[in-house]
């Protein structure tokens, strides 16, 4: 039952997010671009740091 409620809750959140995306994407395309773009910038820069760790683990070189 708890799992079902959780899935329903997440489904509802997904629907709200989609409706938000449709509305903002239509009425405020640059606001929508900012939301998507900022998330992308944060995640790609985070991925850069994780890649740094992977490079350090693999090479064990002193250079940074």
């Amino acid at each position: 039952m708890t799992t079902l409620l959780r899935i329903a809750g997440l489904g509802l959140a997904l629907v709200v997010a989609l409706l938000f995306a449709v509305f903002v994407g239509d009425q405020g395309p640059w606001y929508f671009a900012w939301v998507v773009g900022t998330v992308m910038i944060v995640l790609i820069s985070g991925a850069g740091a994780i890649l740094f760790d992977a490079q350090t683990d693999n090479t064990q070189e002193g250079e940074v």
Partner: protein
Amino acid sequence: MDLINPSVVDLSRFQFALTALYHFMFVPLTLGLTFMLAAMETVYVVTGKQIYKDMVLFWGKLFGINFALGVATGLTMEFEFGTNWSMYSRFFGDMFGTPLAIEGLMAFFMESTFVGIMFFGWDRLSRPAHLAVTYLVALGSNLSALWILVANASMNVPDGAHFDPETMRMTFDSFIRVVFNPDAQAKFVHTSVAGYVTASLLVMGISAFYLLRHEHRQFAARSFRMAAIFGIISTVAVITLGDVLGRMDYEHQPTKIAAMEGLWHTSKPPYEPWIVAALPDDAKQESYFEIGVPYVLTPLVTHSFSTPITGMHELEEQAGPRIESGITAVAALKRYSETHMAEDLAIFQAHEKDMGYGFLATRHAPNQDVSAITDEELHNVVEQTKPDILPNVFVTFWSFRLMVFLSLYFFVIFAVAAYLSLKKQLERFPLFLKLCMWSIPLPVLATEFGWITAEAGRQPWTVFERLPTFMSASTHGVGYMLFSLGGFTLLYSIFIAAELYLMFKFARLGPESHGEHDPENGTPSLSVIAH
């Protein structure tokens, strides 16, 4: 009608420009650093590596210093609208006040509350919960900026309001139209992302300083990597949104775009060059020593190869009938306010869209009363008013160019930085690291030039084509303005000195390790997903 003393108007403008430019030294860093902190903390929560928490704590300290001074300098500006720009506030307060009030609520309730939790909640919250708080700080600070930019956009493109002849004020029509004003959207994203660039270069520059001194190398290299990637994507975004804003100015504020491009005469597509450098002379209405790149201006501004861009001489000529129509509107409005005759209201409504141009003509009317202009005087008044529709071309042209040149420089420096960091060759290029370090102040300058372009380019209006600047100030004395200007200059200079002292002090001290990693030799992973 007595006009406000021009010296008082100039001093009010100077004071507002000064306080806004001081304030805006702090704002972009806050906007960008919060999302950089969120990115670093995300990596910390995902990898569990202590070094990323150290990064959040160290860069968070610099953010805290900047945030406190940003709030202090921003407070006075909220009041300045009432104290120094009371005529503007009366005329446009319904439109401007609402987003300004929401901005205050965002800044003081959402942003400041979560800042406190972010700084003091490390031991009281789970890691994911703390991460959520850091994201809320970032969202709160950027949403504060959103509302002030919505307010600013309504001054540039006053959509969602109409003038009420009964109250003599602009009245709200649609909150949705104000918020979703295309100018507000593009301006917000442009400004917010410019903040990301500012923060990226600060983090990259200070990290370069550590790398040059061979201190905190692992910490600095990771910070540098994240900042370089953050910066290169943000720079592409800021240039893209700059193009969007230019396109909007072309559609809504032709005098601004013509001044930005130093375009005295209507362009000849597709050959028209983009002027790289020139010396515009406002008095003679021409430019000297022009150096241009042919075939660039038309597609750059209009996104086509055949659409002409109207030059400033032609815009002046086009303004003539609007000034005449505006004089009729203002004269009818004056009569209506005295007699409330339906006939006067009908005349006003027929010419309402040109009302601002009528106000603009006030300075040249006999006794500053446009209703007293005779048919013989009308031509002279119109001719005298025409040049007033243009902003200061030299200032607008060069502030725009300096902003553009700097943004292109940022693109190059971030691209090289990202490449060298990904190749792990940063320390082989000490000169480049020095360049990164010395480039820290440049994004602040670029954002200041951006503001000067936007605000100087909107002149002679506070509310574009509705209310001239010379009618917007308060009726203070010159002595009062000089005294308050001196006070603000002194106080804000102390704030800047305090910021620089604290930033240098903590940057030199460097990050503190909190015991779980060796800052020189790497970082053991604590867990895959902390908590």
